[in-house]
């Protein structure tokens, strides 16, 4: 048994509405790898997760998870994967403990083993104190943690997590991150995570694919992607009535290793080392007597990255 994911020319068109949610997507995740799908709402992330976890059929293409064909051998796939979907899947009328025990028994644990496993997992996701309470009274964060625990009952080789931290407060998010890191490092679990947050993918993943509109538009390690995209973003707003074309031209020619593009009234500069480059930008502006209303240094958001990739033409970012 292996923890690989191999996806080949996968497409999905929904009969209802005729939306092509996944367009000829191919990728591989190695055993023990932490892989992230980064993309905005509607990109097709959940659709891919549902196909890979045997909940949905693809329109065309093939996918193998843990060595089994998701279309032809769904039962075998289910034994080796754990999945936390975008919406949690718990019964609000059961207690946390009952929910975990039920899950363990469904996966074939004996009565006693199931009890012990539930106890163990409650401890891991820090729900021991709430174990006897009904899930209906859990907070969103507690529900998420329980949902995660449910996916771990049978120690799956591959773990799918569809936006596991969306809607969580920072402390719960950190707790989930910690647990995912531990699973990946200590247990060697292959993790397939989807997220809308660059920061999350950057922090956790060994490799990231950026998906937009059903297509993979860029792939690589966080470092590689950042090298292409620039890990920092300088955004400046020139004063009204200035010569923006000239400013753009001066910045483009004056800065090394930087991508300069225009977005509405702003000029965006993607760079590797923000602080050093910020000084350089200030020097150019000062020398050329260009006035600016505002200048900011930040990390690029997903929006900024898409703008950059699509702005340059996504061809060059395909692998």
């Amino acid at each position, binding site marked *: 048994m292996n923890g690989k994911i191999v996806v080949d020319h996968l497409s999905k068109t929904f009969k209802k509405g005729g939306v092509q949610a996944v367009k000829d997507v191919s990728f591989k995740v190695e055993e023990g790898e932490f892989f992230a799908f980064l993309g905005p709402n509607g990109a097709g992330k959940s659709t891919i997760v549902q196909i890979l976890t*045997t909940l949905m059929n693809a329109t065309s293409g093939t996918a193998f998870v843990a060595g089994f064909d998701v279309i032809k051998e769904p039962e075998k796939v289910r034994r080796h994967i754990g999945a936390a979907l975008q919406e949690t899947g718990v019964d609000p009328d059961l207690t946390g403990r009952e929910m975990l025990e039920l899950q363990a028994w469904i996966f074939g644990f004996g009565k006693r083993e199931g009890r012990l496993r539930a106890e163990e997992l409650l401890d891991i996701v820090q729900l021991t104190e709430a174990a006897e309470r009904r899930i209906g009274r859990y907070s969103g964060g507690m529900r998420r943690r329980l949902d995660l625990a449910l996916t771990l009952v049978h120690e799956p080789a591959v773990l799918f997590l569809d936006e596991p931290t969306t809607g969580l407060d920072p402390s719960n998010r950190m707790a989930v991150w910690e647990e995912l890191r531990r699973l990946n490092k200590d247990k060697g679990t292959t993790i397939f995570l989807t997220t809308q947050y660059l920061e999350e993918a950057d922090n956790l993943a060994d490799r990231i694919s950026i998906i937009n509109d059903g297509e993979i538009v860029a792939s690589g390690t966080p470092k590689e992607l950042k090298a292409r995209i620039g890990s920092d973003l300088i955004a400046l707003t020139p004063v009204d009535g200035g010569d923006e074309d000239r400013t753009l031209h001066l910045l483009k020619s004056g800065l090394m290793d930087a991508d300069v593009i225009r977005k509405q009234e702003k000029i965006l500069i993607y760079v590797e080392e923000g602080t050093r480059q910020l000084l350089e930008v200030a020097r150019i502006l000062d020398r050329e007597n260009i006035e600016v209303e505002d200048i900011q240094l930040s990390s690029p958001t997903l929006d900024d990255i898409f703008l950059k990739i699509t702005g340059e033409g996504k061809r060059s970012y395909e692998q």
Partner: protein
Amino acid sequence: MSSNVWRDTWLMTRRNVKTTLRNPFSFIPNLMISAFFLLVYEGGLSGISQLPTFEGANYLAFILPVSIVSAAIGGAGGAGQSIVKDIENGFFSRLLLTPASRLSIVLGPIIAGMLQLFVQTLLIIGIAFLLGLEVQTGMGGVLFVLLIAIGWGLAFAGYSAGVALRTGNAQAAQAGTFIFFPLIFLSTTFVPYELIDAQWLKIAAVINPTTYIFESMRTVLIDGWVFWDMMQGVIAITIVSTLTITFAAVSAKRAVSRG
């Protein structure tokens, strides 16, 4: 892997029974309405049974089947309600992600609904005995009445589970239940066929399968072991449950398959 069907079904059923008991308001209202038929109509309408058509029969025994069918429908409707609840909570998907047998995932709530029906029907019969029910055919007749209730409940459980699986929506499933309830009244609910005045109600009663359920129960409660009169109900159940269970099976297949 099919060796696990029994174990999975047991796990699913037990969990459904547990969660039903934790939501008493999912069954108490229906139970009260059903008991209400007995108490109120026995108290208020029992004078009707002095009419010659009743041939001196006990009105309690006449109205009891109405109460039982109402309890049976309410109990069996619990199956659909549990399924809808699971779909809305994402728990249905969680189950589909496990290796649990697909059959058990759908069967669990249906069996739990049938158990609910069984207990509710027993309670109603118990109340009727407390009110002084006398059964022409004795305990054998009570058993037959129970079997008819279970059969008719199964027919309705198939229907409610089918609607639930198809829509995954609580309102739609609820609306589906309301189609079955009027059937109780468009029938020989309060008086025998001969005493129904309106032509349209006579026609409705003849078409309505519930009429045959009532008649077969009343046969054993009031008249005795009259084979063909008893068979009316059995035939109605066979026809209707074949339809609804096929509907449930097709809907279930669609819900667990991967469109």
